[in-house]
C-alpha cells in the first residue's frame, strides 16, 4: 500500500540557553499534530542552536549549548542536533538556516527508515530547483520551521526580520507554531496580509496543557541554587552542574550589546 503522506522535517532554531523539556515537548506536540491530519509523516527533527554572534543577553557559549542539546536528545529516535548555525562566526538569518537545511535535505533522500540515507542523482536536484512551486510537491520532503507562537509574533517587531525572509519561510516552506499562554496566533495571522496569504502553510498547535518551562526561568533558578531537576533532562542538569554554567555573571553577558538582527537591519534601513 503506498503512503501518500508528505514527509516532513521539523527545524527548531533558538537560543536553547539551555534546552528544556518544553523545547523537546514542542517536537512531540508538532509531530502528533501533523500526523493527526493524515497528510504528513514527520521523519526527523533538527535542533539548531543560534551562534554566539546573536548577542542575546545571558547567552552562553555555543559549544555548551550544543553539547546540552545533544545530551537532551540522546534518547530520542528522531530528534537530532545540528551545529552548522551554531559555529558560524556571525549571526545567520533564520531564512538562511532554513535554506541551508532544505538544500541538505534535497541532496539526500530520506527513506521510510530514517537511518537509511540514499544519495539521489544530480538530475533530481536540478529538478527540485526549477521553481518554488516544486517546494510544495506532495511527494517531496517539506522542511517546516518549528517554534512557539511568540516567534510568529516577533515577525511584527521592527527590524527583527527581513520581509522577504518571512515570505520565504512561510511561502516556500512552512511553520508549525505551538501556542503558549497569552498568545493569539490566529489573530496575528489574520492581521498580517503576508501571513494570511500563506496561512495554509502555518500550522497552529494548541498546547492544552501548559508546559511553560522557559529557559529564562531555569537560568534564574540556577543562579539562586534552586533545583531544576525534572525541568530538563537529567544529563543536561548534570552537565550544567559539572561546568558551573549559568551564574549572575553569565546572565550579564551582552548586557549592553544590541541584538544582532536589530543591529544589522537598523543599520541597513538608516543607510
Amino acid at each position: 500500500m503506498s503512503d501518500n503522506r508528505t514527509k516532513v522535517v521539523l527545524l527548531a532554531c533558538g537560543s536553547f540557553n539551555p534546552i528544556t523539556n518544553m523545547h523537546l515537548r514542542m517536537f512531540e506536540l508538532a509531530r502528533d499534530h501533523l500526523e493527526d491530519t493524515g497528510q504528513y509523516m514527520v521523519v526527523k527533527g533538527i535542533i539548531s542552536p543560534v551562534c554566539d554572534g546573536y548577542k542575546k543577553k545571558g547567552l552562553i557559549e555555543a559549544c555548551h549549548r550544543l553539547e546540552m542539546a545533544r545530551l537532551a536528545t540522546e534518547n530520542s529516535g528522531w530528534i537530532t542536533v545540528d551545529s552548522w548555525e551554531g559555529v558560524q562566526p556571525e549571526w545567520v538569518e533564520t531564512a538562511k538556516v532554513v535554506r541551508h537545511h532544505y538544500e541538505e535535505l534535497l541532496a539526500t533522500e530520506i527513506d521510510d527508515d530514517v537511518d537509511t540515507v540514499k544519495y539521489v542523482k544530480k538530475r533530481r536536484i536540478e529538478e527540485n530547483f526549477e521553481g518554488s512551486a516544486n517546494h510544495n510537491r506532495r511527494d517531496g520532503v517539506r522542511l517546516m520551521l518549528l517554534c512557539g507562537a511568540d516567534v510568529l509574533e516577533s515577525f511584527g517587531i521592527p527590524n527583527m526580520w527581513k520581509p522577504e525572509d518571512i515570505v520565504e519561510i512561510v511561502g516556500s516552506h512552512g511553520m508549525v507554531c505551538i501556542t503558549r499562554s497569552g498568545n493569539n496566533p490566529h489573530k496575528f495571522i489574520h492581521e498580517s496580509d503576508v501571513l494570511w496569504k500563506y496561512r495554509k502553510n502555518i500550522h497552529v498547535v494548541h498546547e492544552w496543557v501548559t508546559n511553560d518551562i522557559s529557559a529564562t526561568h531555569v537560568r534564574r533558578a540556577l543562579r539562586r541554587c534552586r533545583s531544576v531537576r525534572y525541568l530538563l533532562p537529567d544529563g543536561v542538569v548534570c552537565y550544567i552542574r559539572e561546568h558551573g554554567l549559568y551564574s549572575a555573571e553569565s546572565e550579564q553577558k551582552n548586557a549592553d550589546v544590541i541584538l544582532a538582527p536589530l543591529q544589522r537591519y537598523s543599520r541597513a534601513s538608516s543607510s
Partner: protein
Amino acid sequence: MATRRVPLVLLACGSFNPITNQHMRLFELARDHMHSTGQYQVVGGIVSPVSDGYGKQGLVLAKHRIAMAKLALQSSNWVTVDEWESQQPDWTETVVTMRYHYGRILKEYEQNSETHYDSNGNIAPLSGPSPRLKLLCGADFLDTFKIPGLWRDDHVEELVECFGLVCVSRGRLQPERAVHESDMLNSHRQNIFLVREWVRNETSATEVRRALRRGLSVKYLIPDSVIEYIQRHNLYTEDSERRNEGTVLRPLIKQAHTPVKSLDD
C-alpha cells in the same frame, strides 16, 4: 551557638496514576524551600501510592503504580517509594499513613543516635532535634478539606497540628486563600508551608492518561522508563479509564458515620 536544623522527611500520598515529572518536581521544590527557611534539613522523601481500595475512577492496579514510581525514582538519591499504604486491605486515612511512617522514622533515628548519660547516671536527651514528617502536596489538596465526608475533622487537625503541610502552588490556585478561609487551617498556618512554583506547568496524571488513550506522545512529561512500562503492559486505555465508574470513593463510605462540620465557620 547556631541552632541545629530539624531533620525533615516529606511524604506524598496520592494516586500516582501514573507518576509524572511534576510529582517529582514537588519534592525538589519543597526541599529547596524548606532548606531556605534555615530551620530544616530535608533528609528523605517518600512516595506512597494509594491502595486499590480507594475506588477512584481510572485507577490502575497498585502493583503497576508502584512499579512505575520505582522506575521513575531509580535515579533519585533521596526520594523512595513505599508500598505499605498500597498493601493495606482497605483504603487508609492519610493521617494513619503518616503515623505509621513517623513511627518508623523516629524508631530509626533513636536506634542510630547514641544515648548519653549525665553526671547523675540519668539518660540525657538525645543530641540534636528529632526528625519531623510533613505531608507534601499540591495546592489543590487544601481545597479537598472542604469536600463533605472526605476528611475527618480530627484528622485534619492532627495533620496540620502534629505533622504539618508543605503545599506547592499550581497554576492559578491560591493556597493562601484556602488557609485564610478556614479558621482551623489559619490557626495552624505556621505549620503550613506554601511553596510557589513560578513555572506554569500544568502537566497532570489526568492529562497524561488522556494523551495515552489518544495515542499521543507523553515523552518529556514522564520518564522514558515509565513510558516503556506503560506500553509493555498496555495500561491506560479507554477501558482502564472506566474502572470504578460509578463507584463511590472509599473515604466517603468509610467516614460516612462521622459527623461532618464545615471548615468554613
